[in-house]
């Protein structure tokens, strides 16, 4: 080959390489494009105004247990780090001296918590927990040694939970075997079992193999308390032949809403969201044990739960109907008439005592949210609520339920609320609710001001200039007194408020101010 040809060949190959670099490198798969803002701290991250995720996708993500779990884990991870005091916050690179100093700081901070408790003060459990997690990451043996000798305190369960979450269970048990947890071995084992029960029952056999039979017997139940039906196979295998532990699993997996039901629109649903699909869960558990000795245990459990929840459902239904229906229910169960009546009224009393002011609360709150968002008129929403109270609730319960509706509505728009009360002829009732709200120390000053302004506009908040002539009827604050407080708290809003008062009142305020 001629040298000139060689030069041409080398040159052309090099230029091919260069051309590839230049052209394909740009167009090729872009490097993970993470905007700097996504990596910055929460406070550094400026709000992004453009859309990145569609509303449907994000809503779906919040319904997806896996994605929610991932988000929750990250929130928690950020939280555990965020709680560390500045002096022990992890730094990117640190020397062994720095590390030793940090560990000393953590130990000192924990010791301070102990002293705080000993002095009869409240301890910061969140902080203590974060310190344990951090220490376990840096030096598990030293942390376990400290935890192993410390005198146990009430409510220090969190510390042990933190401890158990940081290392694999078998590693934790090895730590204990090194004698680093002698005094508090029990707490450590308990926490570790609970953690395994919650997250990784598959790790249990290996961990149990490291323990003596006595320890297994004493602490294994802790793990069962957290058994998830999704891991049924592992659990049933572990408990096979052990009736008591199978009972534990049955209790945990077959648990219905019992008496806790509520109305959602015109449907009765379990009040606890956890119970929404209890039957599905229970049936899955039953299916998992079919053909095994546990089947009988699980089936009985399910029958009992079905009966209980039927009773609860019926109770919730008849709570809104004549009590006779409930009495009938007891009669059908063989109670005599007197006993049935007594039980029925006890049940109703209990149900009502829970607060019928909360009656159909969810849909009422939804309506209020919609009216705050401008999607529905408060007037319609409120009239609808008053109507259903009038037609669906026993008379004796109507006033208290209306009272709470007035208060809620008043906080959304007091002018409209008063107008609805005027239209429906319930002025006295609404003034009572308004007065209660204004007098309540917890009501925000601006809400009080709004309500007072609305009352004043209707001539329901009048002041006499004669201080001896106090207005006992309304129990509302004196206008000058209220204005002074409002001016101190929020001068700008207060001045606007004064200018909007009926002239007699604003004149009065100005005179007093002078």
């Amino acid at each position, binding site marked *: 080959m001629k040298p000139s040809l060689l030069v041409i060949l080398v040159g052309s190959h090099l230029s091919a390489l260069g051309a590839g670099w230049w052209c394909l*490198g740009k167009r090729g798969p872009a490097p993970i494009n993470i905007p700097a803002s996504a990596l910055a*701290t929460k406070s550094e991250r400026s709000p992004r105004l453009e859309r990145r995720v569609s509303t449907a996708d994000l809503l779906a993500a919040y319904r997806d247990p896996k994605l929610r779990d991932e988000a929750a884990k990250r929130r928690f991870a950020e939280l555990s780090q965020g709680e560390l005091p500045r002096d022990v916050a992890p730094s990117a690179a640190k020397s062994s001296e720095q590390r030793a100093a940090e560990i000393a700081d953590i130990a000192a901070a924990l010791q301070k918590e102990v002293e705080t408790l000993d002095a009869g003060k409240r301890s910061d459990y969140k902080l203590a927990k974060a310190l344990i997690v951090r220490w376990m990451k840096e030096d598990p043996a030293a942390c376990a040694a400290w935890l192993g000798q410390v005198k146990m305190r009430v409510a220090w369960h969190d510390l042990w939970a933190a401890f158990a979450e940081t290392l694999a269970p078998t590693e934790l048990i090895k730590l204990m075997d090194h004698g680093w947890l002698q005094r508090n071995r029990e707490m450590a084992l308990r926490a570790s079992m609970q953690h395994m029960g919650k997250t990784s029952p598959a790790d249990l056999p290996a961990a149990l193999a490291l323990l003596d039979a006595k320890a297994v017997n004493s602490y294994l139940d802790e793990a069962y308390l957290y058994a998830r039906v999704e891991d049924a196979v592992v659990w049933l295998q572990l408990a096979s032949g052990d009736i008591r532990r199978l009972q534990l699993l049955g209790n945990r997996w077959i648990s219905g809403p019992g008496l806790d039901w509520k109305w959602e629109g015109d449907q009765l649903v379990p009040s606890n969201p956890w119970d929404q699909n209890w039957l599905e869960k229970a049936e899955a558990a039953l299916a998992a044990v079919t053909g095994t000795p546990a089947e009988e245990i699980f089936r009985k459990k399910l029958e009992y739960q079905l009966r209980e929840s039927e009773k609860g459902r019926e109770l919730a239904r008849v709570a809104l109907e004549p009590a006779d229906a409930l009495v009938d229910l007891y009669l059908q169960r063989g109670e005599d008439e007197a006993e049935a009546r007594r039980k029925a009224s006890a049940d109703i009393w209990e149900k009502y005592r829970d607060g019928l002011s909360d009656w159909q609360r969810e849909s009422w709150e939804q309506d209020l949210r919609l009216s705050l968002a401008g999607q529905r008129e408060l007037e319609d929403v409120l009239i609808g609520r008053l109507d259903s109270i009038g037609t669906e609730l026993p008379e004796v319960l109507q006033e208290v339920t209306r009272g709470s509706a007035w208060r809620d509505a008043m906080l959304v728009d007091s002018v409209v609320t008063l107008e609805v009360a005027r239209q429906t002829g319930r002025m006295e009732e609404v003034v009572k609710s308004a007065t209660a709200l204004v007098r309540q120390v917890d009501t925000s000053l601006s809400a009080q001001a709004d309500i007072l302004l609305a009352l004043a506009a209707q001539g329901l908040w009048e002041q006499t200039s004669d201080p001896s002539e106090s207005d006992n009827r309304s129990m509302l604050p004196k206008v000058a007194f209220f204005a002074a*407080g409002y001016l101190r708290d929020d001068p700008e809003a207060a001045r606007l408020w004064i200018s909007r008062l009926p002239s007699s009142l604003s004149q009065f305020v100005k005179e007093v101010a002078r």
Partner: protein
Amino acid sequence: MKAGTLCLLLVSHVGLLLAGGWLAGESRKEPARVASAPALVVLKAPVRATEETLGNPILRATAADFRAVWDESIASPQGGSEELFNDWCAVDPDGAFQALGRLPASKSNEDYLRAARMYHGADVAPAFVKHWRKLQRMPEDMVRFHLAGCVNELAKKDPETAGALFGSLPPRMREGGYVCLFSRQDSATIEQLLKGMPSLPPDATEEKQALWKGVAEALDTAGAQRGLWEWMAEADDTVARRVLVTEGMKKAGRNEDWAGFFDAVERMDATARAEVRDLVRQATSATDYRPEALSAISAECQRHGFDDWLEGHGAKKQLKE
């Protein structure tokens, strides 16, 4: 040139062309990661932007995304969601807190504030301070408690800013919040916090009392005994001194240790000491100190040459007898 050679040349050129493209892609990935590294060093919590997390819409969502979903979810029967609010706070506390202002009164409202304080504390403090008035449908005590709690968290990082933020609240909000604000802060942080706050007008006695009670309570933790008495000795405001002395006496009584208390009194000037004398007289005659405590106080008084401090008390006791 033979066809075979031509083919070989073509293949080798195309190969190198592709290799160049690949190399360029690789080398660009690196700087991208390195460039964002400094931000990670100061992170409160490193955000693991792996492809896995980026696949999760919740972790990718922007302020605008959260707002849209929030608007949709408050129209549903369940209403907003604490989780959603919590995630929104991480990217846009301002927007999230404004959204809370559009909720009616409800028992579940506290869940939002609690989550914000617990998960974001310091990070949401400025937004919380800015928008708390919009939460007018929520119980004020509850709002105050969580607001002061967030500023308390901020104070652990940047006490002066926290002091200024808290100072920007109106008196009604501040007064009940001091205990929360100072809770568990150390002496140096409290000093910085106070430095950040605008000074109170001389006639704001009640607020000053609340403030110094909060300070005393924070200082009065185990191992901080000296802290409280040092602050007492150095107080240059009558109200502050009155509160710190009262709390100091409670502490000395509880711990049966009066030496530190009277050592601090000795370091005060004559006017301040006269005030303390009156307070000690009042306290010893009004409070049921046990005889041992009274004799301990009396011994300390004598040691410091405050011989006449308990005279009034003695006279009263005798009269009673």
